[in-house]
């Protein structure tokens, strides 16, 4: 009976999880990113392809074009080639798939432990169940930390050709940073039209929101969504 329940859960979980959230189409994001890459709009290309990769991380075409876009960003900044396209990994999982896996592994561990509890001599089974549940819990913890970092400092891409990152008006004046289109950063607090820009875990200053796209909002800028067309400067909602 436990086995039957586990099989049903594994089959039902992905479809339920997928259906309950506002879904984005990986192919639409990929096509929009590829079109931006063809036009030379490296910032939107990187943002849209990053978003497509979040949904379909095993797709070879997405990874190829994303690698090309990143290489062109590096070349435009004179920092050299970073390896070009890499093959898609068959083990790569999207966020939803990772969460489903964590839930399924945790349920399997709990079921094994229940089976051990109902048997007179189930010590080995109990250890196995605890190990499997622990693996699921560790995976869930890692995913939680990643989601928390994304919620606090969301991943974003510079979409304007040049973006100056300067201190806030009340902060001590220092030399501004210059970011180029396609640079991948993380965002922090927002204030009016400005948003805090973070690189490598450190804040480097504040920049205009209109020069940055959040990866989690990339679906808004695809042609099919009707919000904006790719290649024009979009804006970031307040975080």
């Amino acid at each position, binding site marked *: 009976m436990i086995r039957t329940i586990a099989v049903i859960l594994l089959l039902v979980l992905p479809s339920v999880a997928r259906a309950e959230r506002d879904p984005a189409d990986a192919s639409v994001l990929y096509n929009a990113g590829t079109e931006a890459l063809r036009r030379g709009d490296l910032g939107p290309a990187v943002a849209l392809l990053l978003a497509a990769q979040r949904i379909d991380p095993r797709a070879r075409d997405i990874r190829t074009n994303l690698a090309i876009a990143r290489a062109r960003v590096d070349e*435009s900044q004179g920092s050299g080639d970073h390896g070009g396209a890499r093959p898609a990994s068959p083990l790569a999982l999207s966020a939803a798939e990772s969460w489903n896996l964590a839930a399924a592994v945790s349920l399997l561990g709990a079921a094994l432990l229940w089976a051990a509890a109902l048997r007179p001599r189930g010590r080995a089974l109990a250890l196995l169940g605890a190990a499997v549940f622990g693996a699921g819990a560790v995976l869930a913890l890692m995913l939680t930390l990643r989601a928390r970092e994304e919620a606090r400092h969301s991943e974003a891409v510079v979409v304007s050709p040049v973006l100056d990152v300067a201190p806030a008006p009340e902060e001590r004046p220092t030399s501004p940073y210059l970011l180029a289109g396609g640079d991948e950063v993380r965002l922090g607090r927002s204030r009016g039209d400005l948003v805090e820009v973070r690189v490598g875990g450190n804040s480097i200053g504040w920049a205009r929101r209109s020069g940055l796209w959040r990866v989690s909002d990339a679906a808004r800028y695809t042609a099919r969504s009707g919000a904006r067309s790719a290649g024009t400067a979009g804006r970031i909602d307040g975080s």
Partner: protein
Amino acid sequence: MTGRGLRRATVVVALAALSFPSSVARANTSPSGKLSIEAKLSPEQVGPGDAATLTVEVTSEGLNLPEVPLPQIPNVAVERAGTAQNLSIMNGRVSRTSTTMYRIIPRKEGTVTIPSLRVTVGSETAETGTLTLIVSRGAAARPPTPLRGGMPPGSAPSGTPEIFVKASVDRSRVFWNEQVVLRLRLYSRIDVLGDVDWKPPSANGFWTEGLGPARQGRVRVNGVDYAVMEIPSALFPTRVGALTIGRARIRCRVARVIQPPDPWSMLAIPDVVPEDVTLDTDPVTVTVDPLPAGAPAGFEGAVGNYHLAVHVDALTAHAGEPVVARATITGTGNVSSIRDPEIRTRDASREYVVGTSTRVDRNGDRLGGEREHDMAFVADQPGTLEILPVRFVWFDPEARGYRWQSSEPVTVRIEPAAGGTETGRVAGQGLAPAVPRPGSGPRGSLSLGPSTTNSFFLGFSAIAFASAVLAGGARRRRSRDPRWARVRLLESLLSRELDRARSLAASGDPAKAAALAEQTLLLGTGLRYDVELTGLARAEREQTLRARRAGGEEIGGLERHLDALHAIAYAPPETRRSDAKQAVAATRRTLERYRREIAE
């Protein structure tokens, strides 16, 4: 000169270095003149923590030379620095001399009295007088007179000191902010032990920059060879008028050679004693003149000899791309204090300070270096970006006038913003992007957080895990309880043995059914009272049950039940079947009652 007569001796206490004129001495000789002692102290005044040298010299005619212990002196640390001995035989007379040096280090200010030192050999006695050492901080600040200004101690040849210091500048009259090279030199013709401690002079009114590490060499002064250690530094006056460079203090430890008292002795071996030396330089005065009037526009105070170069990283750029212009100033002077020349454009939409870096060259005889100033300009519209001439003005003290240098204007062509595959470097990598997809999907969320379903199942699995852990623990605890084990055995009897007895009764074998029920009842009763009853005779069984606190009525009922089952086994076949069924049912009721009683 035989026997104890040889023990006649002389003890001498002497001041540290024999050549120190500032030393004081107290000597005494025995009445026969065969034993003498002399003590010398140098210098007479020191600061707290500074060392004075006490030299004790004992001379004795004979082979026996007594030790002279130095008594404890309050608030003074005494260190034995070394001993030299000499033996001489002249005209059959043996004379021995011992010279011992002590470092006297007072801890507090005041007057330190070194008590008289007494030495006795046989009937000969000699004694020194007391010595006085004045300890004051003023004495610490004032270096020994012979050492100041380059007159060292122990200058054996006249005018050729063993060690001295000197401060000099390369020019005594300069302009404001003109470089003056100060050289502190330590001349020595005796060995210097360990590192030399240089305390730089006070240089109020000067910007000071070091000119590399200490340099060493050899020079000849007044016909005498010296080893020279030099500390050069560059000074830039920040005020006008007569500025004074104060005294520099140098502390070092030298190896001083103590010659034997009797130069004719064949066994006299010089001894080497370390000695701390403090030397001060003389102050140096530099006259600083103001810069001449009429400085051209753009002069920001740079004095020296410089060269300006301007470089632009690209002559063609796209709109929105930064163009970096760099102004580089190289030359001799205080490059750290140079104000960066202004780099301006006519058409830039935005400009940024990229950075400024300074490289100071301290390896030469004069301070120099290079200063770079980078500015980035961004033009948002196609066209041209003109970087205006950069002008740098400075005062050249050698030419005694102002000089300036201007760069040529630089025009950068600004092309339309990068777009399309034909625009530039980003499109020409040779990597072909994958083609667009014809269909749609897969679909999913861009959020990295869990869905509601994921959260539910994760929470459910956590609860299930926790409950399984609790259930397993409860089960393990109960399995270790003996009452629970008896209940489980009783349940096993009910479910297996009595079911089998019932089926035997129903299948026409009442005798076996009754025998099995009888056996099961005995086992169950044994479990109820936690005792073994099978195989016991009736009386023995009753006695055992009473010992286990079974009631008489209970025992009687049990025995009647057993009798009934026993009778059924031997009753006529036509009556046994129904009786057997009833007896098995009664047995089941009894055992179920036992199970309830145990569980309670």
